[in-house]
């Protein structure tokens, strides 16, 4: 039964990822849908970032050094558009504040 559940979940995962790609493969998008599409990526990615930081069990606010690390990431991404700089500076801030027990 567990095997069957996993297989059904595999089908479910695939269907959720495929449904619009396959169903809309030859449709013309109305202007409203195209505008909505523009906002999907920023909305999902912003929400994902927040979801990764706050777990329901452990209080509902991200830690200070997480906020500082993310703010650094955002600022460096805005200024340099270079993801290696983003990674190194944000992790340096995060680890540095952790070292200082902040």
């Amino acid at each position, binding site marked *: *039964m*567990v*095997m069957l*559940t*996993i*297989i*059904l*979940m*595999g089908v*479910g*995962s*695939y269907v*959720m*990822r*495929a449904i*619009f*790609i396959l169903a*809309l*493969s*030859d449709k013309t*998008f109305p202007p409203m849908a*195209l*505008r*909505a*599409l*523009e*906002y*999907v*990526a*920023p*909305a*999902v*990615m*912003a*929400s*994902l*970032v*927040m*979801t*990764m930081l*706050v777990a*329901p069990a452990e209080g*509902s606010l991200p830690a200070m050094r*997480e906020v500082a*690390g*993310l703010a650094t*990431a*955002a600022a460096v*991404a*805005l200024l340099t*558009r270079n*993801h*290696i700089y*983003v*990674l190194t500076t*944000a*992790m340096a801030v*995060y*680890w540095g504040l*952790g070292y200082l027990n902040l």
Partner: protein
Amino acid sequence: MSSSPNLRTNHGRQGALDALVLVVPAIPFALVFGLTVRESGLAVWLGWSSSPIMFSGAAQITLITLIGEGASLAAAASAALVVGARHLFYSFSMAPVMQRQPRWFRWVAPYMLIDQVFALCAGKRDLPPADFRHYYLAAGMTFWSFWMLFTALGLFVGPVIPTNMDISFATPVLFMGLLVTAIDGWQKALVAAFAMLVTLALVDMPSRSGLLIAVVAGIALGLLIDRVRRLW
């Protein structure tokens, strides 16, 4: 000859390299999944089989954890489906760019449409179709290989992984970087900020369902801004 074989190879290589940067911080997560399988009491091969069958980190962990805790299979499956429901947004968002792709790719691509692949490829939608495809396939296959290997490793080394998983913070950091570079204009910045606030406000909702509401709320705000601007 706008896309020489050489340039195409570079997009493939770039996709693999970009994916590798996201792979490293996901290693603890993959190992934790292996540990989850062991603690669930399921046969290890059975738990691991969800990696190739579902290829969906958070939904897999939800499913196996709940089964291990003795929840009914139907309850575990529905919670995992809610956790995975954000993929509907990825599918919708990728639909127009997939129209320019061959049919076989439209059937293969969804299998690899995980968070990281979406985050990387959402910013590549303006590439010529062949370059986009090579980038997407390289990123997807890199992440797939890693996930198969490290969830299997986690079955055996799970109990000895260090509890300090600070490296995992690199994932939200890189997603934040990808988010900022995807934002062109203050409307999208507002949409992103609003989606974050709504996610934070709804963090206690079950199975990450707050994320779904936050995304819809963000898109609605974007459309509202468009509407108001056209009236002026």
